[in-house]
């Protein structure tokens, strides 16, 4: 039940007694209190249906897209202590600050360039030179630039699955988000593409706060600094990743990370 990160570390976001209900009745999160360290990667692990994706999608108010969903409690976004799940806060503002990469690569059926530029276009950027620069920078940050620089105007669908996922990362990075949410980003990819994404996440966490949901324990161990183990809508244990994987304090956590259940 502990949610403390070492006091020396700044927090980027912090859930305080967060409850979440799907369709107004099904309670998927039961009082989550969890701090996310600034410019660190936090992994969310747990068996299917434990609420980790639900928690992730609270962080950019994705649940607002579907009727009847309800939040209780608070998720503070630092440094301005904006309550993400407050209904008076515009979800569009949240999503402009918190980017997301989905489970299955979901590029738009447009060119590679337009995919990356879209976030800037909806913010009103029209100057070609500005867009060009931002697109290149985002693609470089997503380790995709060298592979696509000669075919920026090809359809994004012609890329491989792994490239498409890195394109989606570039698309999210282009607008300079403060926090980036990854929802099982490699579950649809082969091992090589997975390795490249993991490498990328490890690099990105120096610049941006990362929250990653994963079913792959090794992945959590490889890329994250902190790990939260969730079970049935509750946070069971939260600690430094090495601690969770080598010496967890909770019996359930130990059983899960050693593969005895889940």
């Amino acid at each position, binding site marked *: 039940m502990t949610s403390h990160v070492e006091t020396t570390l700044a927090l980027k976001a912090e859930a305080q007694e967060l409850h979440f209900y799907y369709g107004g009745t099904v309670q998927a999160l039961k009082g989550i209190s969890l701090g996310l360290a600034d410019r660190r990667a936090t992994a969310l692990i747990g068996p299917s249906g434990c609420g980790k994706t639900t928690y992730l999608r609270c962080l*950019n108010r994705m649940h607002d*897209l579907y009727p009847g969903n309800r939040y209780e409690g608070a998720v503070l976004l630092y440094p301005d202590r904006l309550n993400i799940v407050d209904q008076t806060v515009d979800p569009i503002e949240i*999503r*402009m600050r918190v980017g997301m990469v989905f489970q299955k690569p979901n590029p*738009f059926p447009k060119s590679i360039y337009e995919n990356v530029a*879209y976030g800037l*276009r909806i913010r009103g950027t029209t100057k070609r030179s500005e867009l060009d620069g931002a697109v290149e920078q985002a693609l470089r940050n997503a380790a995709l630039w060298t592979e696509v620089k000669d075919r920026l105007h090809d359809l994004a669908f012609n890329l491989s699955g792994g490239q498409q996922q890195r394109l989606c990362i570039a*698309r999210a990075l282009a607008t300079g988000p403060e926090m980036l949410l990854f929802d099982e980003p490699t579950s649809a990819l082969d091992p090589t593409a997975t390795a490249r994404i993991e490498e990328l996440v490890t690099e990105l966490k120096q610049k941006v706060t990362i929250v990653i949901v994963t079913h792959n324990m090794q992945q959590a161990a490889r890329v994250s600094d902190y790990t939260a183990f969730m079970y049935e809508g509750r946070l069971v244990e939260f600690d430094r990743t090495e601690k969770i994987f080598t010496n967890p304090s909770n019996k359930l956590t130990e059983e899960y990370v050693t593969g005895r259940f889940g």
Partner: protein
Amino acid sequence: MYLKNAIDRSTESDPLRRRITARKFRDRLFALTGLGAMVVALLVLLALLGQLAFDGMGRVSWQFLTSYPSRFPAQAGILSAWIGTALVMFLTALAAVPLGLAAAVYLEEYAAKNWVTDLIEINIANLAGVPSIVYGLMALGLLVSELRLGQSFLTAGLTLAMLILPMVIIATREAIRAVPPQIREAAYALGATKWQTVRDHVVPYSMGGILTGMILSLSRAVGETAPLITVGALSFIAFLPHPPFSHEFPFVSIQWLFDPFTVMPIQMFNWVSRPQEEFHVNAAAAGMILLVMTLAMNALAIAIRARFRRRIHW
């Protein structure tokens, strides 16, 4: 020993084989029934087309396309009819397409998912099934009598637009629904508003389906006769509507909107109801041309669908 075993086996497996044979027989029986049904439908269609071609083909000529109707069958043509059809279709599309698109986008993307929306959805489906003559009566009361638009191109276009509006809405909603929710989520996750998501993603990606639905709806409207007779189509028009351009400022003229109109099926109906055999031939020839127009529209719909399918596959 061998013999006994073989006999044993055959007596054992016989019922099994019989059951398999019986099941396969029923399988084949169904396939044959289906084939028969298809052949009957196809033969009827071919017979109709053949009859039409046989009767009318000899009459289709340049003269036929460029002449006004006449009381002499050999001099009669369909100039006012096909131009009328083209203009009415233009007006129908102009009215039904933006209305249908906007209504479908609203219902699919904006409307709250509750019983009111369900009720509206059911009733749009019902409206698509209302007999076209009822639309004609409604148009006669509303457009001709109340709004005093007269028995004009404008009335005809708006009548057919009302008729196909439910179809356009249904087809557009289907197309919009085919856009995967992941694409919408991708746009929203970048901070897009609903309008930006609709304008930049949902509508462009469903354009193939939307256009197909619109063209198929229009190709239904092309053959409509009853509602146009109701609102007062003339069956004998020996002049063209006013030109849409004028010599004086502002160089466009909307005079033609209020001219009396006729369309292909009305012309055909008129010829068929005459006693002279020669006029029936004219009707068949006009039918051929109307059929070609419809088939061309359907072909265009297929081409558009194929083009968009190549570009976008989920």
